[in-house]
């Protein structure tokens, strides 16, 4: 039982972290209508940028993470402006390939400058709290709390501001939004800024939970996508719920399948979800087919 609870808690925390890139992907999917395969590598970039800033002398981890998030946000917005905006009229496969290419480029630059060695964040060493066998690391709580805070901020932006309202209008129909006078371009740049920051923080949190290496984000691309599909494409709430459900399922599968098969499980969930209920839990009947 305690083992089950430990796995559950771990899954919950990881789920909250994976919710960030899942949310990032679902926002871009809903508005730009393509899956941004570079999301994972934005996460990796964020983690490395933060480590780099720490090594360069930035005193607090939080400050480094925020500056890193700004840098990645700018990179993300630039990639939209320079690449994806121009590919919007092309068939989707063009954006897909460009996103893969962008991910490769980011990953290669990271390994060229920072090498392939695993790195870790400079975190204070703390003992886990132990409740009769159920272990909780204070850092994990901090991670979960940060993830929740980020999600809260995004949700407030989406549902309580005019920015969010306009975004959701464009997600429903780009033509409609344009007709009612919303300036789509500025809006979309802001979206990509947000998405970049979100991915960056997600990468830092993932790196804090484990180690930082060039494949960090790429390894979470399929799980993030699976979470998005599970929760329902275009549904922010769905992305979070999907991520938590998926990661809990992944953790619970470890005693059965081993840790290495977590990604295979994510793929399995993805395939089954697309077959049985492509709209996901909260999605509209999106044109999956």
């Amino acid at each position, binding site marked *: 039982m305690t083992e089950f609870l430990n796995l559950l808690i771990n899954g919950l925390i990881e789920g909250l972290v994976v919710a960030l890139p899942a949310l990032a992907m679902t926002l871009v999917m809903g508005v730009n209508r393509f899956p941004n395969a570079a999301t994972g590598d934005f996460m990796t970039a964020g983690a490395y940028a933060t480590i780099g800033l720490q090594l360069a002398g930035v005193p607090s981890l939080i400050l480094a993470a925020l500056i890193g998030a700004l840098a990645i946000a700018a990179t993300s917005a630039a990639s939209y402006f320079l690449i994806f905006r121009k590919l919007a009229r092309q068939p989707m496969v*063009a954006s897909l390939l460009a996103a*893969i*290419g962008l991910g490769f480029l980011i990953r290669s*630059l990271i390994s060229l400058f920072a090498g*392939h060695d695993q790195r870790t964040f400079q975190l204070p060493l703390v003992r886990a709290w132990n409740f009769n066998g159920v272990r909780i690391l204070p850092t994990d709580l901090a991670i979960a709390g940060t993830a929740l805070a980020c999600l809260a901020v995004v949700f407030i932006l989406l549902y309580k501001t005019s920015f969010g309202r306009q975004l959701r209008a464009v997600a429903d129909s780009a033509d409609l939004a344009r007709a009612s006078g919303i300036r789509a371009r500025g809006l979309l740049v802001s979206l990509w800024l947000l998405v970049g920051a979100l991915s960056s923080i997600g990468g830092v949190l993932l790196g804090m939970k484990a180690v930082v290496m060039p494949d960090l984000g790429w390894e979470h691309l399929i799980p993030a996508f699976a979470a998005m599909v599970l929760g329902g494409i275009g549904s922010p709430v769905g992305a979070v719920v999907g991520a938590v459900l998926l990661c809990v399922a992944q953790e619970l599968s470890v005693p059965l399948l081993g840790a290495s098969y977590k990604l295979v499980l994510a793929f399995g969930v*993805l395939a089954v979800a*697309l077959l049985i209920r492509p709209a996901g839990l909260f999605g509209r009947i999106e044109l*999956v087919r």
Partner: protein
Amino acid sequence: MTAYLMSIGIVVLIYALLTLGLNLQFGLTRLVNFGIVAFFAIGAYTSGLLSLKGVPLPLSFLAAMIVAALAALPIGLLSLRLREDYLAIVTLGFSEAIRITIQQEEWLTNGVQGLPGLPKAFASLGGNSDLALFVTLVLVTALTAWGTLRLTRSPLGRLLRAIGDDETALMALGKDPARFKVQIFMLGAALAGLGGAFYAHFITFITPEQFIPLVTFYVWMSLIMGGAGTVRGAIGGTALLMIFLEGSRFAKDLIPGVSEVHMASVRLAVVGLALILFTLYRPQGMFGKRQA
């Protein structure tokens, strides 16, 4: 020098088989397959494992094609229900799932350590084995190219191009694309499996790390550079890609302080940049004329 050129030629021809397969799937029928390396790996490991058990190479090659095609069946069926971007990510996930499974199931595949000591193709010919392999590959690739051309110009090829152009219209005309899409998916996978078998018995030592998504996107680059949809383009693009990849090896020798690991990252960077630039500035590579 000739030996070196011949080995490049062999690799080019192996990749040409993969590109011809992708040309059938995407060039003609517009199926977005981001999981080519999965079938390449399945072909390599199937032939490798069978040959280690004593199965003669021609049979193990055949088995490689069959197993790869069968592995493509569930994905082909999935493709009927999925829009192109979902298919892309699902096939990508599939290729990673295959790689991880190969890595984990040590009892079958020897896991991370891979399969060393695979029988080299035409080993009985000693020093001339590479030449024999090269000639065989030329014949096989030529046969595949011819077959693909025949297919493209046949009624089925017409139908596949129609599917790639507009499935909805085709269905309104009384034809269900399902069967054809699955068949083409499996055919492309069989070609990739064949390429994998050739690869395995050329380098004689395969590990899971060789079957990463980068391979899939080498093939996509070949297709785009040559112009998707034409057989000439598929082969030409592959040659271009390989010249670049081999050329980069020379560059490493020319530029001081660049290690092998660095070169791997540089290649990744250039492929990434090339994908971005080609989609932005040479879309005809992806969507050009698709006749022959």
